[in-house]
């Protein structure tokens, strides 16, 4: 099949749909038609993949209900970093806590490796997540012992553990900034903004539903890169 300029335009349109978190494919809408074409025409799907790659994007998958899921290549103009998010003045410890919470959400949602290959989605709740993280910290502390007063050697677990689970707001309900429940709510808010979670108010005010996009991001990209970073950090600590 020869590729026409019109095909290129259609391929770009599909990538654009992937960049819109709110866009949803249905059987008859333009997004759904382009998605169907991506799945049934090898030449078109190659074209979309190549076009996305040129933009610094990677097509992770095309679940029927979610649509095309794209993420960024390192250094892409679309790449977002933790520091670009709405809590702009996060200190190093805040960033660490946010990272731990993101990992904890993945650990909570996918307790077994096979869960990353299942399209079942999970609901998560702020207080339950906090309890999950603190129980993991208790296990780690039981294995490795209490940390000392050396700030250089302070463990990530201790940074989280020393923060209060809940601090009340002055004039309204909900956790105030500076406690772990606020941090968890903030990270879940980021995930909602990125289309990786949805609020599930019917199940409770602080309950969220993770989407299939979150699973693909963890299984396809995030997990691998974090493992690589973990190995690098271990190698470096062994050599020093």
């Amino acid at each position, binding site marked *: 099949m020869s590729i026409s300029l019109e095909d290129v335009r259609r391929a770009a349109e599909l990538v654009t749909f992937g*960049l819109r978190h709110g866009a*949803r494919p249905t059987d008859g809408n333009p997004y759904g038609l382009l998605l169907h074409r991506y*799945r049934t025409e090898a030449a078109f*799907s190659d074209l979309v993949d190549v076009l996305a790659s040129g933009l610094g994007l990677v097509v992770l998958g095309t679940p029927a*209900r979610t649509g095309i899921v*794209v993420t*960024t290549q390192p250094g892409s103009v679309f790449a*977002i*970093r*933790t*520091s670009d998010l709405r809590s*702009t*003045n996060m200190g*190093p410890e805040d*960033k*660490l806590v946010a*990272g*731990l919470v*993101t*990992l904890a959400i*993945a*650990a909570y949602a996918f*307790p077994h*490796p096979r869960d*990353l290959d299942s*399209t079942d*989605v*999970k*609901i998560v709740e702020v207080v339950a997540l906090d309890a999950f993280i603190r129980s*993991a910290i208790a296990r*780690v502390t039981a294995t*490795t012992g209490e940390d000392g007063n050396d700030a*250089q*050697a*302070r*463990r*990530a*677990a201790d940074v*989280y553990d020393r923060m209060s689970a809940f601090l009340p707001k002055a004039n309204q309900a909900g956790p105030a900034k500076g406690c772990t429940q606020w941090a968890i709510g903030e990270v879940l808010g980021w995930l909602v903004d*990125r289309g*990786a979670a949805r609020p*599930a108010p*019917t*199940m*409770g005010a602080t309950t969220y539903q993770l989407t299939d*996009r979150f699973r*693909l*991001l*963890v299984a*396809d*990209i*995030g*997990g*691998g*890169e*974090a*493992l*690589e*970073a973990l190995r690098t*950090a271990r190698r470096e600590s062994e050599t020093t």
Partner: protein
Amino acid sequence: MNEVRSPAGDASVRARWRALVLTDPVARLVRNAGHAGIDDDVFDLRQLALAAIDVAVASMGFARQITLAQLVDTVAGLARLMDERDDPVAAIEAARWVVRGLLNDAENQGKFVYVFHDIRSTPRRREEYAFKLLSLQDSPSGAVVQASPQAVMLYLNGLNLDVDDAEEALSVVLRRQLEDRRFEAAGRTAETAERASVAMAATLADIIESTRRDVRSADWLVDVPARLARARKHVKARIEADGEVIGHVMSGIDAESDAAVRRASGDLVETLQRIREVHLDLASRASGAREVLQQAQLRQVFSRPVRLRLLNVERELFEPILAMATADAQAVCEAFTDRILGFRLPRVLHLGDLVDSLLTPTRQVTPVEYVPEDPGNADEADAQAYAPEVIAAATKILRRAEHAPVPLSELVDAATAVDPEEVDGAVEDLIELVTLAALWAYAPDLPEPGDSPTAGIDTLIAALTAERTGHTIDRPMVWGNQLMISASGAIS
């Protein structure tokens, strides 16, 4: 002592044990309800659980699948009918508890796992039996609820029955009851038969859905074609029988003189017509199944193979990172979080739009009626004032300009790096105060006579001057023209 064993019992013990454990999740959620403040005396949680499964199975079979929110609302509606107080909050709590219990929320919404001790095998062994009752799938309208095959089994009174055999048996019973003119009993049998058809359709829907996701998930060589053939045969026979029975009962109504029998026959006709709809729907589902397979094959052959990395996030990442030193942990956390966050769309400035927006006349604001503020308790701290420790930290930072001019970016960086404990966590306020001081120094807003003193801020910044350098500053909270700050006198 002689061993007393029943060979028949031994042969079926595993199946009966499985049927028994399928009801345990419901028993468990009832048992633990007290800990969650749900009153089991007020709400019949077992019935609510059965209703939740009924609704999920029925929606899987014949209509748009029910969402989690709709399921909770439906169960809460039923719960309200059980509560004489008619308390909507308690009803929704009960509904949430039931749905969470069926999702196995206590164990991360994983499978329910039970261990069967096979004492008859040599050597003796333990077998895990894991199942879900309800699970969630992502959809454009939110999470939709999917019932597992085990939930379908539970729906059929928790018995490990072959759905098709049950249907056939019920069909025979129904005919016999009609011949015996026992119309009320026939009505009850017809309703049971309807549930069997719903379950058959739900099983079919489950196969079709899993085929859509992955063509390898169902055996389309032997098992599924056999099921479809059975479904088609069943539907053909049932639709014919439905018409025959409806005709038979309706002719009986016309000739019947007993009012009670006429009423029971009328109800039966309604039930049978509803069942007929169910069978017609099942027919269309069975006829469209093959097409679903072909489309899924076509799609999945061409789709990019997903290179999922199946790792144990908790054991391989989360726990090792918790035990790492903070600096190392931060690098790994950032690598993970940066990838999970996906992408952002860079905004490109369009000159035409900029000119248009600059030329747009100022929006006329309707004057708002002034309502004097309640002065409140004078002893309370001013909510808008900066805390004394913030002012002290800002003074310390601004003092850097006493001896030589300092760029604003350096002052902002110094404010960002302040230990949060020093300013009671108000680092944002500190950055804001330093920035405002610089801006005030650049364009002073002289106080009007009668203005109240502002907690020493005027004194703090009166000694500062600021000039534009021609460069820019770009920090998360501060961006725009770079300013060079210098002090014309000592900062007090």
